[in-house]
Each structure stands twice: as C-alpha cells, then as structure tokens.
C-alpha cells in the first residue's frame, strides 16, 4: 500500500476530503468488547478532566450566590449560606444591561460578518492563488500582530479622533471589514492553514469546468471549511463579547457601553463588589456557553461531504 496518503490527492474523483465518517461508521471491529473497555476508560479520563475543568464554573456560581464576606471565608465554603439571590437583581439593575446587551449585539453582528467574509477571502487568496509577493504580503500582515498593541493604540486612537469617530461604534466595527485589521490576521492565518490542506485537484477540476476563483472559494472551499469557519465565528464572537479596552477607549457616553464595560464597573479602580461581579459575570457568559454548545456540533458535520462525491 504504497502511499497511504496519495490516493486522495492524486485522484480527483475521490478527493481525500470525501472522508467517510470515521466514528461509528468504520467497519465493525472484531474486538467489540475491547472497545467497550476502552470506552469506559475514556469516560473515566474525561470525567476526571471535566471535574477539574468545571471547578471554576462551579466556583463562579457559588460566588454569585454569596455575600462578599462568604466568598472569602476561610476555610472556603462551597454551599452558599444563605443563598444571596438578591445579587442577581441587584447586579442586573445596577447598570442598564439590556441596553449594553443590545449595543454588544450590534457590534457583534458587524464584526463577525465582516471578519468571517474578508478573512476567509484573503486566506483563500494566500492559500490557493498564486501571485507575486503573496508570501511577502502575508508575512507583512502577520508582522502587524507582533508589535504590542500598547504602542499602536495611541496613533490608532488619534486617527479615529481625526475622523470624528469617537463615541461611535465605527472604530470597533469598521476594521472588521478589512479582514479584522490587526488581530484579524490570526484568522486569515487560521483559514489559510486549513485551506492549505484541502486537495488542490478540487480547484483544478473546477477551473477546467470554467469556474473562476470566486466560485471555487464559495462553492468548493467554504463548504469544506465549516469547522474552521465555526472556530473563527466562536473566537470572534467571544473576542468582541469580552473586549474591554476598545469600548472603554472609544465609547464615552454610557448609553453606548457594552456588556464588558458594564461588568468592569463592579471591579472599578480601587473597589470591587465581588458578589455582584460574579453574578453579572455568570449571566453575561451564559449566552457564549450556549453559542459554543450549539456551534461545536459542526466539528462533526464538517466531514460529511457527500455532496462532492458526484
């Protein structure tokens, strides 16, 4: 079986990516019982790991239901006594969180859309089209994230100020449509890495049929890139959700504030209201947990590429 790796790439009619789902559908093994045992072991390992992973979350929940005195009691308690349910109404009414949620979602809408489209397009160009200076340009882009933002922050701020865009969402959203300018390079790089591992024969076949690069990008590459697209969506969404410094700098009027800024008020300069901070944090991260839970299923479905088989 020379070239275990080669059949796919060398044979356009059966591209590697038409992967059979390995799990479950792989040929029935003779060693069913052994599998069962492995499975049990796997379960144990995962369960142990999960406990370690979930500690902070449990801790967050219990702190959200405690008074400040209890949060730091020594030795620490796991069960609130009594349950400080009032933390929630108190935290959520201390700031206009509905307004902050709306603001955050508006920013999310623009940033996620802009980032996914422009970053994947650029990455397609860097990974699958040949043009002079391509690698130099990519290197330049990547260099943009190697310079600490602390020193580019002021010039960038001055630029937006000159453009009269302070206290608007423009500085927070517009760069997303330029491949996320700056930090977005990581997304281009990520898309590029994935695109590079898709067999090139797919493109070639399409070009023979008269397709142009846009068609290849849109009809062939992107459908194959669901898992990585999901990763970029998740990361971008969470990035905006938690971005604190950007909104802090560019937004002045507190009716424009975002959730992350709202949270920060519970741990302001020199003071902290821990119980409220934990309660508000818990509420604020719930949507992203749900988002992740929903989106991660694409990490399975991404490989069912039966559509390509024809």
């Amino acid at each position: 079986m020379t070239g275990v790796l080669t059949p796919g790439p060398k044979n356009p009619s059966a591209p590697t990516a038409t992967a059979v789902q390995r799990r479950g559908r792989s040929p029935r093994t003779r060693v069913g019982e052994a599998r069962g045992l492995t499975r049990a072991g796997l379960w144990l390992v995962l369960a142990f790991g999960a406990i370690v992973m979930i500690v902070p979350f449990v801790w967050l929940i219990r702190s959200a239901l405690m008074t400040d005195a209890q949060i730091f009691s020594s030795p620490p308690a796991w069960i609130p006594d009594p349950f400080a349910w009032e933390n929630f109404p108190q935290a959520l009414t201390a700031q206009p969180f509905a307004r902050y949620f709306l603001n955050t979602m508006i920013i999310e809408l623009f940033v996620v859309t802009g980032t996914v489209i422009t970053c994947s397009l650029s990455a397609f160009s860097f990974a699958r089209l040949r043009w002079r200076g391509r690698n130099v340009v990519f290197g330049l882009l990547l260099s943009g994230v190697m310079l600490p933002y602390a020193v580019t922050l002021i010039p960038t701020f001055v630029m937006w100020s000159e453009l009269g865009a302070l206290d608007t969402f423009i500085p927070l959203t517009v760069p997303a449509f330029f491949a996320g300018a700056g930090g977005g390079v990581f997304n281009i790089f990520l898309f590029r890495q994935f695109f590079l591992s898709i067999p090139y024969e797919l493109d070639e076949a399409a070009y023979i049929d008269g397709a142009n690069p846009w068609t290849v990008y849109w009809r062939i590459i992107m459908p194959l890139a669901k898992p990585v697209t999901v990763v970029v969506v998740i990361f971008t969404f969470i990035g905006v959700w938690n971005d604190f410094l950007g909104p802090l700098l560019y937004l002045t009027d507190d009716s424009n504030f975002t959730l992350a800024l709202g949270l920060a008020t519970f741990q302001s300069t020199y003071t902290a209201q821990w119980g409220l901070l934990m309660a508000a944090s818990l509420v604020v991260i719930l949507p992203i947990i749900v988002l992740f839970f929903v989106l991660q299923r694409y990490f399975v479905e991404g490989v069912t590429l039966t559509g390509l088989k024809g």
Partner: protein
Amino acid sequence: MTGSPNLSRRDVLKIGGGLAATVGIGGSLAACSGGNEFEYMFWGSTGEQDAIEAMLAGFQDTQEDLTIKPVYTPADYDTKLNALVASGNVPDLGYVQPAMAYRLAEQGKLLDLAPHFDEYPSLGQRLPGSYFYWEEDKCLGTQGANETVITFYNRAAFAETGAQPPPASAAEAWDWDTYVENAYLLTADQSGRRPDEAGFDPTQVARFGTLASMWSGAWYGLLLSAGVDVVDSSGTRTMLDSPEAIDMFQKLVDLMYEHRVAPSPSQLGNNAPSMAVQLASGRLGMAIDGQWALLDVSQADFDFGVGVLPSLGTPKTTAMGGPTAIFADTEYVEQALELYAFQSDPDQVDLFSSGLWMPLEEKYYTDPEAIASWTDNDAHPPEYKTAVIDYTLENSQTYFTQKLRNVEEIDRLITSTTERIQTGEEDVATVMGELAAQLNDGMLQGVYPSAPQ
C-alpha cells in the same frame, strides 16, 4: 445598520467631515461636534458613579446653556486619559493621578487655579496639604477629597478577648508594645489558642489581631511617627535606610513572623477580601487603613470603632487624595471653577456623609456646625471627631507620593522592595540599604513645592 442608534446619519456626516478634514478641504466640520458640552471624567465604584452623577445633575440645574456630560471610566483610567491627551480630546474637568497631573500641568495642559483662590474662597481655604503646586505660585488644584489613615476595629472582638480598644485621640496613642500586646489578645487559632500559648497552630488562625500592611500609605504614618521621612529635606536623599526606618519595617515583619498576630502576604493573598469584610466577619480584630473604608465598614453589619494609629514617638498619620483638575483647553473656565467648588460641598455630594470622602475646606474640621453637616449620621461613630477629624488637623502629613518628583519609578522600586521584606526571608537592613542605594543614585529628583503658608 438598522437598529443601531449609534451609527446615525450624524455619525456618517462626522466621518465624512473627518475625511474631508484629513485631506484638507474643510477642517471646521470635524471640530463642530460637541456643542456646549462640558465633560466631567471620573472613576469609582457603582456607588460613587451614582453619587457623582447625582452631583452633576444638581449642578446641571444651575446651568442654562451648558450640558454637563459625565464620562465614567471604570478602569484603565490612565490609558484612556493618555489617549485623550494625545488626541486633543481632554475633558473639561476630571480626576487625574498625582504624577500625571504634575506632568500635564508642566506641559500647560491644566489650568492654574492659584489666581482664582480669592474669587472662590472655598477653593482657597482648604487643608494646606491638599494643594498640588507644580511651581511656587502655580497650583493645578487640590485633592478631590481628603483621606486619612486610621485604625478600624471590631468592638465585639475586643470585648470578647478583654483587649483594650485602640485609643481615639492622638494624645493617647498606643506605643508599639501596647499595640502588639493587644494584637496578641485578639489573635486565636481554630482551637482558641493565642500565639504565645503552647500548641498555637499558625496555619489555622481563626482571627488575626491586626494587619501588617506593606502598602506605603499604611506605613508612612508609622515612619513619620518614628521621626523620619521617605526623603530628607533636600528631597534627593532617602531616609529609608535610617535605623528608625529599618526598625519600623522590622516591627511590621515581626507582626507576621515573630508575633504571628498578623497574616503574612501569602496567608492574606492578593485581591483578598476587603479589610471591611475581614473585620465584619471577625477574621480580623483591627486594621490600619484609609478613612474611605468607613463607607464599607459602616455598611457591613457589625459594631465597629475607629482609632488613631500606634506611634513610634510622635503620633502621626498620612493625609492623601488624588487631584481633580480643570483642563486648560476648557472654554468654560468660570463654570469649571464653580463646579470645582460645587463638587467638594458636602451638601451636594453624599459621599462625604456616607463615609467615603472627607471634606477639603478647613471649616469642616474646625466649625462644629460644619462638622455636624457631614458627620452627624450612622456612618460616623461618636469617636470620629477626635480619632479622625482632630487627628487629621493636628497630626497628619501629606502622603509622600503626592509630593515627590519621579514618583512612579520610585513607587515601583519601593513596592518591589517591600515585597521582598514581607516574605520575612530577607534581612531588612540589607534590603533597605539596597533600596537606598538605588534611590540615591539619581532616582530621587526632589519634591514639588508646598502650599504657601
């Protein structure tokens, strides 16, 4: 862009205007935003935010043409202010950290208030130590509020253990040994043993007598009481390697490791529960901290008291506060000055009566009626008059970080040095010697002028 009230046509115009300005077609478009807005920039907890916004709303009522706009910046205040300074978007009035305030003043970015002191007596008659003069006759303003370092304590803990409560007047201030003795009485492990009893388990302490805070604001008063200061009168040589200073730091270290009546930094932890929480829960008997903690302490449901600091000779404490300044670019100097006076009036801001702030005008420390206006309430215990007000007036000295030049670098070095000391593993005299060598090697660059007497 549906649903986005913030990307309105006005903003699109702004962008257009900004672009036009950049290419030099019309610079005026970008500059016309803002109208008659007056920005007040500040930080603080949600409680402080509410109080300041209420104060600003009160001031708004006195104004017809001016819109007062609160610019609340919960964190990374310096970062935002730097960005605003660099881009020429400074607020009209705002909190500023001391070192940055001096820097901005020297750069001509802050208004000199000295010429206006006669016109606004409430500006001119404040505690002498509260002023920030960057030159002999140029003053960028005063502290936003005054604060003093005092001792807080849990009355129940004292009653329980038979310890004497900390004295409420400077004249009766404890000497160090009395302080330590009482801390011994307060400290107990889980099985009720005191540190001087056999079988005391230092890893299972139920209550610590006191805190050995290595925060410079907390030890500065002790240092002064020992008769020395951080710098000598020239401002260029440190006194932190003097025998008195070494002795003071050794005493603090001993509280943790020798007497075991105070938690070590590792027992306490960074971001630890606030002092108020520890006092209220009985985990702590007493603590030296800033007067502002009165807000939290008085709101935590327990019987507390306040007292003066122990003394190593002459009773002394630290007075401090971050400056509030008017930015030189403001078009509304008169209104800015009015607001400047307004914001420090206990009748307008409830942060004075709630315990967070102490007033700046001297009359609030001397005139009984004025004193009652901000202390006659539940937050201020009866002994407050002697333990805090008189103590401040008679025994306080301004925090050195408000006066030293190059204080950021100095402060970083002092902080990392005290972190070494508080591990209890290094020889205090050696460490202080190293600190002094570095400080005296050009890091100390003198002091800013004091208020003219």
